[in-house]
């Protein structure tokens, strides 16, 4: 009799535990779903906010890349994404974006191409006829390449005649800080035939490097700004080709990492921007 009572008590206890566990599990599952939905909603909200608030500052730079290869001149019409960084028409882009295709390929392949093209004179590349297109406007604003920082892969283009217009711009002074593992967003613009619609990409900071300079590593199109998961600007995507004199052994890994974006944190950008704002182009060719 006592045994029966004991077994009933154990059975009841087990049932209670089981129901409790099941309930807890069910509750966790609901919470997880809620959490996931909330995260999705937040993400969507952030992206919409980026589109609304930040995308207007993302512009397109059209230019002619003139390259002289073994005495033969070649011109190509090209485009690059840029970021308006001041209300009076100063635009930031990646310096490597303003190169001709051959120059860019040579630079990115570095030592490998240097070996293949050994003995050949370097490709002379010039950027001409720059124009800035704001959003999807049909007007092209004449612009000049006013400054660059080849080490940091930055270049600044200034609209020649802003006509008292106040452009939407990104303020890198008030920036977020990203670390390894953080998610981030980028914005760029699609090509003219797609109405230059802004497009948002997302990725995760996968590494941090110190050499050749302190940079974060992620994916993204160089020349695009980077925002944290709350939509606050955090940095700018650049590229880091091998430096002159450096060669690298050809490796598949190396080729794969060519596509990686290197993110220059905002504070470094702000330092460079201070110098660039006062820079003027010199009389050239």
């Amino acid at each position, binding site marked *: 009799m006592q045994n029966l009572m004991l077994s009933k008590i154990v059975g009841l206890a087990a049932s209670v535990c089981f129901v409790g566990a099941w309930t807890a599990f069910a509750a966790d599952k609901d919470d997880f779903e809620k959490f996931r939905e909330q995260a999705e909603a937040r993400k969507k909200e952030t992206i919409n906010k980026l589109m609304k608030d930040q995308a207007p500052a993302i512009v397109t730079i059209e230019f002619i890349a003139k390259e002289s290869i073994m005495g033969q001149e070649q011109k190509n019409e090209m485009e690059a994404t840029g970021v308006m960084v001041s209300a009076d028409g100063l635009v930031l882009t990646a310096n490597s974006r303003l190169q001709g295709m051959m120059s860019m390929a040579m630079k990115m392949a570095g030592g490998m191409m240097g070996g293949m093209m050994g003995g050949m004179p370097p490709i002379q590349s010039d950027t001409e006829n720059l124009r800035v297109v704001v959003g999807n406007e049909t007007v092209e604003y004449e612009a000049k*390449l006013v400054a*660059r920082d080849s080490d940091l892969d930055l270049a600044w283009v200034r609209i020649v005649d802003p006509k008292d217009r106040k452009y939407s711009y990104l303020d890198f002074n008030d920036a977020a800080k990203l670390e390894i593992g953080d998610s981030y967003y980028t914005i760029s613009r699609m090509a003219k035939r797609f109405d230059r619609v802004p497009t948002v990409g997302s990725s995760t900071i996968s590494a941090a490097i110190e050499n050749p300079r302190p940079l974060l590593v992620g994916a993204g199109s160089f020349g695009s700004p980077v925002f944290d998961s709350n939509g606050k600007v955090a940095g700018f995507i650049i590229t880091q080709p091998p430096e*002159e004199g450096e060669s690298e052994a050809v490796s598949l890994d190396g080729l794969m990492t060519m596509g990686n974006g290197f993110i220059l944190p905002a504070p470094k950008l702000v330092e460079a921007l201070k*110098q660039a704002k006062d820079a003027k182009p*010199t*009389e050239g060719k």
Partner: protein
Amino acid sequence: MGMVCSRKGFRLSGCSAWATGLLALAVGSVGLANARAEEPKAKSVTAELKDAIARARDRVFPALVSIVTVREYQQNGRQRLARSGGSGTIISEQGHVVTNAHVSEDGARFKVILSDKRELDAKLIGEDPLSDIAVIQIDLSKLGPDEKLPVAQFGDSSELDIGDYVMAMGAPWGMSRSMSLGVINNNDRVLANFFMDDADYEASLNSDQPTGSYYRWLQHDAAIAPGNSGGPLVNLKGEIVGVNTRGSFFGGDMGFASPSSVVQDIAAQLVTGGEVVRSHVGIKFKPIKTTGHDYGVFVNSVDEGSPADKAGIKPGDLITAVDGQSITIRYVEELPELMRNLSTRKVGSQIKIAYERDGQKTETVLTTEKYEKDRGDREELKKWGFTVQDLTPRMAHNRRLPSDEGVLVTGVDVGRPAQKAKPPLQAGDVVLAVNGVGVVDLAVLMKAYQQSTNQDPMPKYVRIDFEREAGRYVTILEPKDEEQSERPAELAKAWIGIEVQPVVKDMAKEIGIQDQEGFRVTRIYEQTKVAASDLKVGDVITALNDRPQKPRSDEDYAAFQREVKKLDIGSQAGLTVLRNGQEAKVSVELEPAKKTIAEAERLKNRDFDFEVREITFFDIANRRWKPDTKGLLVTEVEQGGWAGVGHLRLDDLLLRIDDVEIDSLKTFKQVMEQIAEKRPEKVRFLVLRDIETRFLFVETDWDSLVVK
């Protein structure tokens, strides 16, 4: 005499040996005597040939000239200049020089170098692409008052036989007054490939200009090379029997010359009238070899609207007689004679043609028309950003255009007004009107262009009506002067005026610093802040501001300066160095990085067609020039431009122009503007080339600079 054979070979008996020896001696003596008797003959033949060659040479050499052509060509919407060379022969005391049309083609300027090495200007009298013959005329104004030019005579090429000696004279690869000897290999060569259809052969020579269709060639093996073009083929009498026109790099020395029987007549027509007037019938013939016919000549194609078309002749007809004379063309070598027969008729002649169609015989009469110029003149519209060519009836016909009215767009310069126009112009478009005013030909277009671009300011927009693929379009372009592209300022970074090499562990051991890694100073630039410090070549920098400096690899040359760039300009950098095994501290003030060669400013001069750039600190250091060296480095020279023809070269350091020292781009710009105002005939450049100075006397041609 007997011979005994043994296993060891032949063995002769004693007596027989003597007898055999005497016999051999006798035979040998007779042979030797004969040979010696032949020697004078052979020698005399050789001497005669040598004398004949010398006589022939001396009759023509004095009249042989080298020709330098500055030609204009179009490329990607721009008109450019190039220089090319050929040969020619003076054929009249008035200074007429016969050469190839492909030597004079697109020539903007000509220079002739006489046998006594004097250089004289020349002008084009006329050129005939169909025979590839041209005549230019030397400017005699620079000759002495009683001076007469040496003149060469034409011979009769129809007297040539296969095997006859001929000499090719000219300037192969630019080596003037060269001569080679050969023989005639074939005296009625038609240049057709075995594997090509005969009409394809014609088409392959250029649809607008079928050179070589009307004539047979003299094939010979006197060595010729590029530069021989236009030079004479000479017989042993010292007469011009041909003009060397083509060579072949395959199958040994093969040269092809236009026979003098053709050249003399063509040259005379060019001298008299500036052109060769030919009749045009509009038929492309095909030999009957593969057609299954036994007689006649096959009609491959009939030009629309041509005399043959008007007379009712159609492709596929078999022509059997011309003006009552039966005709059979079995092989391609026979075609040129027929075509020449027809083309040399007077324009407007009536020709009776008998032909068969689907087995039916019939006759017709066609009236010849003038064979029109193949290609129109070309121009560049620089401020509108495209190049054009006048449409000839032939060009219009080949493109199936409704008429030859309008001007063909041949190229569009990327980034310039025509390419930025809405919609952009493209090569192949035909300009029909400018600002609503019809453009019938190039002259009208150029007038409209100059009127528009001479306005100050230029009109903001120009409307262009054009045809493209049978559609009629309108575009608006914004004329623009050519822009000078600008160099952006490179943001200043801190720099120490040294070069270093990475020192990794293995090297560290070898240079006696054990496991210490760092950067070994290989060079200290003069005239820098660090040159005034205690740092020495050979020091190994192991730390910068107490921060260890370790190269990542033995190729990590840039790492040290990369660290320096992170510091502030004007601040003191503390270097920890190893010197002779001992550690030392060196303090260096950081200065702004010097401008690199890539950042050097450049300036182009369009009149003389060359570009210069400022010299940089690194130019002076790397070339070991004196620190106070001034000048501008030449970075581009257009081959056919004044500077190029005047022998200015890439990498020359331009020191002076006339009497003005060139110390900056600003001075250069000012001097060139003054020269453009004064328009001198010659400008003197002083350059440093390698380690020597050179004076270059650059000739100008201001009249050739039309407002474009």
